[in-house]
């Protein structure tokens, strides 16, 4: 498994918090590192940024490369329970345990301080990791996250494929569902969404459901609908600084 990592100047002299970035469908560890332009803000706030890949690669599982929204590049940050995926496709555990262990063992990190954010499928991953592990992440944010996968085509396909047909099992990886059982623990969520995002209008992202759930559960979310932006990395690059600051506020508190 490859990952991209950015070490700020501060890491040369001391331990730094780690901010995990989860990329979207079809992405590798390279996309964010290459395109997001987060480095200046991360350097300024002294954050190590780790960008893992979006799925195992080259597992030689039949059908893994058949479609762009399932299998390779589409791990969906779940631990698969169905064959043939359940051996390799354990992205949830990878992000939650294996990767941090590896990072903390090899880089000057402060293991107590970590946050998570992501884009699209990665946004979904960030939200569920934060919501399923209260207190583990100091903060969470997302760009155009898939907020309610059990309700959208992408989610139904992936979750069905990795977890089987029992929809109730899916809810364990659905942010909007997870909010409903989230304990009274502080979590400040920032979400940016391009208003001209074709996947928003296609009903793949469903942020309103998530917001409604958060409103009901009194989970603080600032959701910014950015006029004129789509689903691309230009959108991410525009608002990446706000997100870095959002995390820095909690990681450096």
């Amino acid at each position: 498994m490859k990952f991209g990592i950015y070490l700020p100047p501060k890491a040369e002299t001391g331990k730094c918090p780690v901010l995990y970035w989860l990329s979207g469908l079809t992405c590798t560890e390279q996309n964010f590192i290459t395109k997001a332009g987060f480095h200046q803000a991360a350097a300024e706030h002294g954050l190590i940024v780790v960008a893992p890949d979006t799925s195992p690669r080259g597992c030689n599982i039949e059908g893994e490369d058949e479609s762009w929204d399932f299998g390779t590049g589409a791990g969906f940050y779940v631990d698969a329970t169905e064959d043939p995926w359940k051996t390799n496709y354990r992205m949830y555990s990878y992000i939650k345990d294996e990767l941090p262990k590896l990072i903390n063992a090899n880089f000057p990190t402060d293991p107590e301080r970590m946050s998570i954010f992501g884009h699209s499928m990665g946004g979904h991953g960030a939200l569920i990791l934060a919501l399923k592990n209260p207190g583990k992440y100091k903060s969470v944010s997302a760009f155009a996250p898939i907020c309610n996968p059990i309700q959208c085509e992408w989610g139904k396909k992936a979750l069905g494929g990795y977890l089987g047909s029992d929809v109730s099992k899916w809810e364990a990886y659905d942010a909007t569902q997870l909010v409903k059982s989230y304990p009274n623990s502080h979590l400040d969520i920032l979400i940016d969404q391009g208003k001209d995002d074709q996947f928003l209008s296609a009903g793949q992202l469903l942020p309103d459901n998530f917001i409604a759930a958060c409103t009901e559960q009194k989970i603080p979310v600032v959701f910014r609908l950015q006029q004129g932006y789509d689903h691309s990395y230009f959108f991410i690059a525009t608002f990446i600084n706000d997100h870095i600051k959002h995390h820095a506020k909690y990681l450096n508190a």
Partner: protein
Amino acid sequence: MSSRSGSTREYETSDRSPGLSAFPPVPESSESEAEGLIFYHMDLYGSKERFDIFPKELTGQEDRSRGDTRKESALSSEKFQCSQEAEYDLEKEVAELAKMYGLDEDREKELELLGGHLEMVESRWPPARTEKAGSQGSGGGLSSSGMSDEWNSQAASEEEAADVFCSTCKMPIRAFDKLFGEHKDHEVAQLPSAVESEKEEIHKNMCKLEEQIAQVENFASHLEEIFITVEENFGRQEQNFEVHYNDAVQVLAQKYEEQLEALGEEKRQKLEALYGQLVSCGEHLDTCKELTDATQELYLENDKANFMKAAVTMVDRLEEFLKKEVDLELSTLPDFEERVIDFSEVEQLMNSINTIPAPCAPVINPQAPNTATGTSLRVCWGLFSDDTVECYQLCYKPVSNERSSDEQAEHTLKVKETYCTITNLFPNTQYEFWVSALNASGISPPSERTVYVTAPSPPTIKNKKIRSCENAALVCWESRDINPVDSYTVELSKLTDEENGDTITESIVGIPNCEVLIHLQPTQSYRICIRALNLGGSSERSEPVLIHTTGTYFCLNEDTAHPLLAILDDGFTIACDELENPECDLPVYDNSFTRCIGILGSLIPFPGKHYWEVEVEEDTEYRIGVAFENTPRHGYLGANNSSWCMRHIITPSRHKYEFLHSGMTPDIRITIPPTRIGILLDYENCRLSFFNADIAQHLYAFNSHFQHYVHPCFALETPGILRIHTGIAIPPWTALP
């Protein structure tokens, strides 16, 4: 002197006489340069004196040692003498000159030394040279040419030699002379250095002279002053004498008249008495004689009876007459009565001449700074004469513009000293004072009236208008006096735990207005007092105010409040009960919002960060943010480019939050309706941020370079209340983003 004037003549004629114009002009030596000034100067007086200086050198070397000034004065006296001799017999001079020139070799040498001057002379009269050639030609060409050769060689050697100065003889010499001449054993110096030192010496003397001039000038002006003073003083005394002696003479004359009159009267009385006595004596004698005659006649009577008859009558008559005592006492004495003449009046008059008249008028000093309090003044005056003064009479009254109050009580005090402290006055009030000096002889005229002013009364700090932040405070106050004060002083003391508030840690002086921005340290408590100052002094301290530099503190500007907006008693809760007033026509002030039910706060105009919070009910619709002071009052906050607002409205489906500037808002959804909104105004980072203060959630930030200082603004869109909280330390979680 005689030898000098003689030689003067001798050279002068050399110009006029063609025979002597062959006299070799020698190139100017440095010495002649030094004398050039005098040379030129003398030119004005005719050629005669032109050479006056040379003989002086030739004949009397001692003269040179005299000071320049003396030399000059000697010359100027000569000038006079010489000009008188100008009409001298030329012929005689020529003869003398010829004799001297022809005979005396040494003299010739000396003359050569002075060639420089001669050259100048010659150059001024070029025709003399041509004439010289002609006349010489007739006399003998050889001698002429020989002469000029000699002159040439001599001139050359002179040029070389004039480089040493003999300090002993005080004259320039040729180096040759040092070796062999009379200067052999003398101390010599190089001419340039000698010139330098001589110049230096002259310069020193000049300086001394200048000093002396300054001194003497000073002294002269001092003398002038004394002169005037003496004139004045003596003139005054003369007048004084005149008046007093006239008085005394008058009194004496009067006394004389009185005495004379009394004497005459006495004389008359005495004479009258004596005369009366004399008359009565005469009468007595007559009676006696008559009786004697009658008695003698009786003796001659032969008739006995007749005799007896007559004798009885006669005896009775005689008895009766002799019974009367004859008064032989002088009724009056010839000498006049001793009179006691009363000179006491004259004596007094005479004495008063010596005890000086009534004193001169004193002069009141202008008011000295810091001599007044709000209710007292210290007045000083002086007497610029030696008059004897027993005490002073000080009068004062308040200066008033109103005519009618001219009769305001004038106060009069008797004071021994030349100062007085007057109490029980009104603050910041002008009083005019005048003073007279008194002694036994009387009272002086009053001094000029001088106005003193009492110190102001302490100002009143406008508690409700105090604004502060972490690093500064803006304090306003008002003067309680009608008259303006000169300036104000702010005294601030930092309050420590020991509560030692009396130590003034800082004073800010010379504040012209009733407002000051004070730089302070964060998270401290300060006690601030104001004093008002005028010429007279400073007032007592104002009532102190306490300022805490924790967070930003501001107050609401009631003038800007919309008529339907009420400010509750705490001053920080604003309420709106109804959106429209049925009775309409509420008072609208010039500065108040007319459409938006809003109000502005008065934020301290100070850079840095300012934080405040607004407590709202979940269902209250409001606009809160910042605005320029001059934001349009007829528009809605956030609808223009002079205000930045967070707006909350309730739509059928949800709480809607807008972040408005110029009527534009981003599309932002907030899952938890904030009930305590934190607003952070950060001038340094050009940012205005809104937070859900309860959960430290950042909601939105405007990025704007505020062109001017802004003020907090608050508005209600539906009936409800907003509670504003100030003086809150900036929470750390506002630092990012």
